[in-house]
């Protein structure tokens, strides 16, 4: 009991409790619509973790939402709500494609150049939102949602320009192969590589059937770095002080306007990085004409909230999110369960994480009940004596 109470008081308990409730609600919906919840969950886990290929795909799909999640969490901890992750992500893909198509250096130069150009694109876009907020008081949610659409059409414009358009398609030209960040891209296609992989089926599954790339490693690095920046540096200290109490921050000599711009610059840069890593890491290695938002920015919001807005917490949260959506596809294919039920589940989880006080409240309730029981016990003992 004591262990349980202690655990419930920790911040992570709220997230886990929300996840549990999400599954419970999904089970209820499944049962009422005539599906066996246990069977469905079994298929869901199989679809996410059943084969090396599945696990790899879950990791690959977790990469961009991990980064957009970190971006949202970072901004949130400094008092800003970055709803522009979508646009910053798209800006990252566009910039990376432009640079990746135009330049063709050896990989050690090309990869950082392409990736950083994407991050820079997102960063400048974020900084613009921050600038408008700091100097003209325009709320960042309004401007960042507007930039989402501006970036979508800018992306479509890039796709259609002559210099980048791939003839007879709705995509831009593919970036030069020296930009690729997959694991062993040349070797796995060479005769020697294929010979070797034929002997090792699980590795063949991972390397040849998926776009396993280094993006997730970079994303974990960024999540940890963002956490350190926030909690262990003078800059992070200032950003948080401004986020929690701008008036006190200003009074004590912190440049509030500069802080807002800096925060959005970093937050936007992380989303831009997500876009760039998707261009270099997974096919088709280019941008496509977009009819609507792809959802990376919005899913980043969910990831950040499941993680309780901890940047490092976004790592498991993004894997969970990606596992549910990827595994959900298998559930739909194998059992005919509509994928909407998976979306409801994610929605419920996010909904319950919005109640961060829930777990500590349960802890206090348990404590009080325990105390009441103890006093009854002592009374009873006294009575016997």
């Amino acid at each position, binding site marked *: 009991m004591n262990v349980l109470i202690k655990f419930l008081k920790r911040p992570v308990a709220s997230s886990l409790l929300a996840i549990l409730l999400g599954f419970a609600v999904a089970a209820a919906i499944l049962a009422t619509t005539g599906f066996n919840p246990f069977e469905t969950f079994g298929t869901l886990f199989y679809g996410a973790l059943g084969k090396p290929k599945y696990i790899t795909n879950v990791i690959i799909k977790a990469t961009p939402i991990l980064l957009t999640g970190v971006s949202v969490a970072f901004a949130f901890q400094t008092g800003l709500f970055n709803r522009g992750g979508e646009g910053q992500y798209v800006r990252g893909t566009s910039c990376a494609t432009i640079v990746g198509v135009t330049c063709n250096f050896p990989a050690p130069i090309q990869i950082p150049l392409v990736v950083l150009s994407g991050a820079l694109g997102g960063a400048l876009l974020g900084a613009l939102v921050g600038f408008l907020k700091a100097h003209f008081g325009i709320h960042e949610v309004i401007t960042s949602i507007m930039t989402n659409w501006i970036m979508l059409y800018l992306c479509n414009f890039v796709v259609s320009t002559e210099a980048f358009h791939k003839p007879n398609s709705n995509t831009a030209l593919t970036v030069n192969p020296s930009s690729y960040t997959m694991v062993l891209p040349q070797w796995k296609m060479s005769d020697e590589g294929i010979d070797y992989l034929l002997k090792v089926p699980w590795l063949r599954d991972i390397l040849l059937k998926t776009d396993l790339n280094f993006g997730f490693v970079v994303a974990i690095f960024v999540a940890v770095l963002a956490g350190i920046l926030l909690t*262990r*540096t*003078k*800059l*992070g*200290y*200032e950003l*948080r*002080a401004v986020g*929690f*109490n701008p*008036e*006190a*921050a*200003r*009074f*004590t*000599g*912190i*440049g509030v306007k500069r802080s807002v711009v800096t925060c959005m610059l970093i937050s936007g840069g992380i989303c831009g990085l997500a876009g760039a890593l998707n261009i270099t890491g997974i096919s088709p290695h280019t941008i496509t004409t977009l009819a609507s938002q792809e959802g990376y920015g919005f899913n980043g919001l969910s990831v950040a909230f499941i993680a309780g807005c901890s940047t490092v917490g976004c790592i498991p949260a993004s894997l969970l999110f990606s596992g549910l959506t990827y595994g959900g596809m298998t559930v739909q294919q194998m059992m005919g369960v509509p994928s909407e039920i998976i979306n409801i589940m994610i929605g419920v989880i996010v909904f319950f994480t919005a109640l961060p006080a829930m777990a500590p409240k349960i802890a*206090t309730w348990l404590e*009080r009940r325990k105390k009441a029981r103890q006093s009854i016990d002592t009374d009873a003992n006294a009575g016997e004596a």
Partner: protein
Amino acid sequence: MEVSSEYAVQMHGIVKRFGAFTALDHIDLDVRKQTVHAILGENGAGKTTLMNILYGLYKADEGKTYLYGEEVGISNPTEAIRHGIGMVHQHFMLVENFTVTENIILGDEVCGTAGVLDMGRARKEVTKLVEEYGFEVDPDARIQDISVGMQQRVEILKALYRGAEILILDEPTAVLTPQEIDKLMEIMDGLVSKGKTIIIITHKLKEIMRSAHECSIVRRGKYMGTVDVAQSSENDLAARMVGRNVNLKVEKAPAHPKDVCLSIKGLTVRDERGIEQVRDLNLNVRAGEIVGIAGIDGNGQSELVDAIMSLAKARAGTIEVKGVEVQNTSPRKVIDSGVATIPSDRHRWGLVLPMIVSENAVLEHHGDEVYGKGIMLDYDKLRAYTEELVSQFDIRPAGCEEERISGLSGGNQQKVIIARSVTHAPDVLIAFQPTRGLDVGAIEFVHKTLIAERDRGVAILLISYELDEVMDVSDKIAVIYHGQIVGEFEQGTVGEDELGLLMAGGGSQ
């Protein structure tokens, strides 16, 4: 105590819990009919909570309430009003652009046939009340045009209009000038002589001595007894309230002022609406002296502080710190030039509440190399430094370095601000309402620290709305009225009456 109709209000064994916290622990209160009964206690002792229970805003977990010897259960303010209880809150609840009469009848309108408002009759009734109690309020004046003291009288009238026999006044003197306080005391006497019973909530001993017949003392939610004020003294009351002997007199040696450290010449500042709040203000503060600015809230004090901190633009004039002009630079530059500030509202300006104590302890100075090399902030050093502050300034609870500062009491939060201001060795210290909302014990500590800093050679500018504080602590007293200094005196050469008159704009200048 026995339940009897001799008592207007009797509350016995009142218990109120908020979660795990017991705000009131078996409180007893017996208020005789036709008396002024004071409830004395430190901030957070539970005075207001007790009165909110009487007024039906909270429900007691245990205990009984009797009015004139009859047990009653009051579960909301409407019932309280029906029982003849009226409450005047610390913050007035008036409609600014309504007249006095309109405000008084609001919610209890006098209507003729078909629900048409009968303003003529309402006005007559209000005028009758005003005359009966000698309130000197114009029933047709708009609230925005009358003084704070008069607004308070309107609040009292509101309660009387609804037939209140028992009046609860929550910190009634907090916003008044000395003259207005005198008037309020007169009004309270008048009300009692007409049969009303008054309960005042306060932590100001002087006013209890002047106005109350009996005083019940509450300390940390516990009842500490009731004393006959005539048989008691300020020191006695203070000791009962805090639980130890408190030195109410500010003790200090004569000042030894040196060179002028802070010099303000011809300063003019406008507020955000473009209205001049500080006009051509001149003031000098020397190293090793405390200059106190007396004045009523809203006479340019906050704009003056903002201008010194470069938070507001100086339209004209100069502010020099040790001979260097700092006006219209940036808060950072002002702090770096040796100015430290204790802000008036610690939650708004002084602290970042969700951050931990040690993070708040270095606010203003987190950029110093001592607290971490380069871009890093060294939390071990932060903790070591804060541990030192905690022991040196007796910040409680001990070992709170890693706790969120929002969990500390107001007095201890203020200690953190003062500790961080003085440990970084400023040349000029601006203390704006440094004891706001603090209890007697904490006030004593703040005043001692200010004087110790003065003796160390710091130039201190003390700005306070508490006239007693300015008079007791300052070596030099300046009065601010409408953004100008309208009088400067050495300590001890001027009385409360003269200062009060200047504060209200009735000066000879």
